[in-house]
């Protein structure tokens, strides 16, 4: 299938893996400005950090298996949940989809040869790697690993003796990386679309990443300055967040959440883009309500920047602010609802093949809905008084981040795997792994919702005996879940090592990335294509 027959496969498929550039060996990767190589560099690091953080998650669950279980000391637990949160949020889920798949596929999907600023793209990766290195370095400095929670709430983060400044400096660097990636993605989308690729012919993944990139540009600097102030405060004591000097700790929380709430949409929007990509391809049908989905991405990105105060309902902020933030929180759920309904409607009268990418995408919808609906429940003012900072919240965000973004990531990985690596994995085995993962996931996280409703506070290294049963179930779930995860990734690695050679277009997709060889050649397109139709017009 070609786009109006313009794209002819006339060239020898010398893939970007075989490209001979200035450098050899590892240098050919870490100094490459090819967006595809950079995407894979991110993939490598992110998977590494992800496994570290999952291991921490496993340790936490193990500690919580029974009241008083003597696995580790309290300080150790406090450090572990902090690191777990920091790594997962700042090192894994925020960069994951935009930096890996956005990098790899956004240029191809819009018919470009590379990003707008290839060198800055490489710089972003280096900043990411150094920021991560600094965060890890902070573990080994005097005072030991940080123990503030990923939120770094003042004044605790100003008083604790551990090396908070170094850790937030690391996150600051990560923020710079994120901003530059955002600048690159927005500019690329504006400037490098192939002729004929009008805004409403963009694949929805591009829309998702584009909206995300704006949030990255506009929200990230706020947390940058917040963390810079934490550093200045620790070294010079200017007092802006220190109540002893007149500072207002709630303003710290405002600044923190001004970024960190939009950040949750940085996590989810690209994943939603992936789902919008996968569903039409496997139902062989145009997406239902293209414009509604595209605009709801923009709506989520913009209205989503106005709801940060729902993390502060019980913090002592004014009741007036709570009311406004609660109202806005409920309104921002509507564009998400629109997306969900459109996805489900796309399945209607399709011709559906339940291959792994679609399976993960549908699981995304299910788990994301649970996560989102639990979000609604805790967004109600009265109920939040009860549920704030309990395991309910922990359940909410694991459902929505891992169930949502995590499964979106898995969908993306299984969807584009043949394109990225030119190999195919064993689809039957993926389904086996999915079953384990899905069961484990729910056994792990559903009890958390009940625990929270019963009043189990979060960030507790120990708990009263009545909570035991549910914690025990949850811990068992974590083992099942990790087994499923290992199964799925093992299967992918097997595919890499001895999978069959993948076709150029195994799923018969209509968007541009499927019209070029697998894996793509260094400059993607021999001739810049001329686009004559939408991304989901099959046959």
């Amino acid at each position: 299938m070609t786009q109006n027959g313009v794209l002819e496969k006339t060239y020898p498929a010398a893939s970007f893996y075989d490209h001979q550039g200035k450098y050899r060996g590892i240098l050919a990767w870490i100094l490459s400005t090819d967006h595809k190589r950079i995407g894979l560099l991110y993939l490598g690091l992110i998977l590494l950090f992800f496994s570290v953080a999952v291991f921490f998650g496993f340790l936490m669950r193990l500690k919580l298996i029974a009241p008083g279980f003597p696995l580790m000391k309290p300080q150790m637990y406090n450090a572990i949940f902090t690191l777990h949160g920091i790594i997962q949020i700042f090192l894994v889920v925020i960069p994951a989809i935009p930096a890996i798949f956005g990098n790899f596929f956004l240029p191809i999907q819009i018919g470009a040869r590379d990003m707008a600023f290839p060198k800055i793209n490489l710089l972003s990766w280096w900043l990411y790697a150094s920021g991560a290195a600094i965060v890890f370095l902070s573990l080994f400095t005097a005072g030991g690993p940080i123990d503030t929670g990923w939120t770094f709430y003042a004044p605790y983060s100003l008083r604790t003796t551990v090396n908070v400044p170094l850790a937030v400096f690391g996150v600051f660097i990560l923020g710079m990386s994120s901003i530059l990636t955002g600048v690159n993605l927005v500019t690329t989308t504006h400037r490098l679309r192939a002729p004929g690729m009008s805004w409403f012919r963009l694949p929805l993944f591009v829309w998702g990443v584009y909206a995300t990139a704006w949030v990255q540009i506009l929200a990230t600097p706020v947390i940058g300055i917040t963390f810079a102030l934490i550093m200045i405060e620790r070294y010079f004591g200017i007092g802006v967040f220190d109540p002893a000097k007149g500072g207002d700790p709630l303003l710290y929380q405002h600044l923190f959440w001004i970024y960190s709430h939009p950040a949750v949409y940085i996590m989810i929007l690209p994943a939603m883009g992936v789902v919008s990509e996968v569903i039409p391809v496997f139902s062989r049908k145009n997406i239902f309500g293209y414009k509604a989905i595209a605009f709801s991405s923009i709506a989520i990105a913009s209205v989503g920047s106005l709801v940060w105060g729902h993390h502060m309902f019980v913090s002592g902020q004014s009741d007036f602010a709570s009311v406004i933030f609660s109202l806005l929180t409920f309104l921002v759920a509507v564009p998400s609802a629109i997306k969900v309904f459109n996805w489900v409607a796309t399945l209607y009268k399709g011709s559906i093949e339940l291959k792994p990418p679609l399976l993960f995408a549908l699981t995304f919808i299910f788990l994301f809905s649970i996560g989102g609906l639990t979000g609604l429940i805790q967004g109600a003012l009265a109920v939040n008084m009860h549920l704030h900072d309990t395991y309910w919240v922990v359940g909410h965000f694991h459902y929505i981040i891992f169930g949502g973004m995590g499964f979106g990531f898995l969908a993306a990985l299984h969807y584009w795997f043949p394109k990225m690596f030119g190999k195919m994995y064993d689809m039957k085995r993926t389904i086996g792994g999915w079953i384990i993962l899905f069961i484990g996931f729910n056994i792990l996280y559903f009890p958390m919702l009940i625990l929270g409703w019963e009043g189990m506070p979060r960030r507790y290294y120990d708990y009263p005996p009545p909570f035991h049963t549910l914690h025990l179930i949850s811990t068992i779930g974590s083992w099942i879940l990790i087994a499923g995860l290992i199964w799925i990734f093992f299967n992918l690695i097997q595919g890499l090592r001895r999978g069959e050679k993948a076709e150029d277009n195994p799923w018969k997709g209509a968007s541009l990335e499927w019209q070029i060889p697998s894996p793509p050649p260094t400059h993607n397109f021999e001739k810049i294509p001329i686009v004559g139709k939408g991304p989901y017009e099959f046959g």
Partner: protein
Amino acid sequence: MKNRKYRTYILVWLALVILTGITVSMAGMDLGLLSIAIVLIIAAIKSGLVLSYFMHLKYETGLLFKLMIPIVLAALTVFIGLTFSDVAFR
């Protein structure tokens, strides 16, 4: 045409200097809240001049250039406004 641009720059610079003079002398007077407003309005005019002439925003075409500053202003207003919904009503 080019030379006119040259002259524009100098004129803009003159305007900036004069506006600075006005704010500084204004500040001596005690007008309370009004003086905050005036001082900020003058600062806004000054940055408007820099943005449109020195930074060429006036001459750029394309929706993106037209939207950028409004987007940032909207973001800042909303951030400050919503923060004040707390700070001012606590």
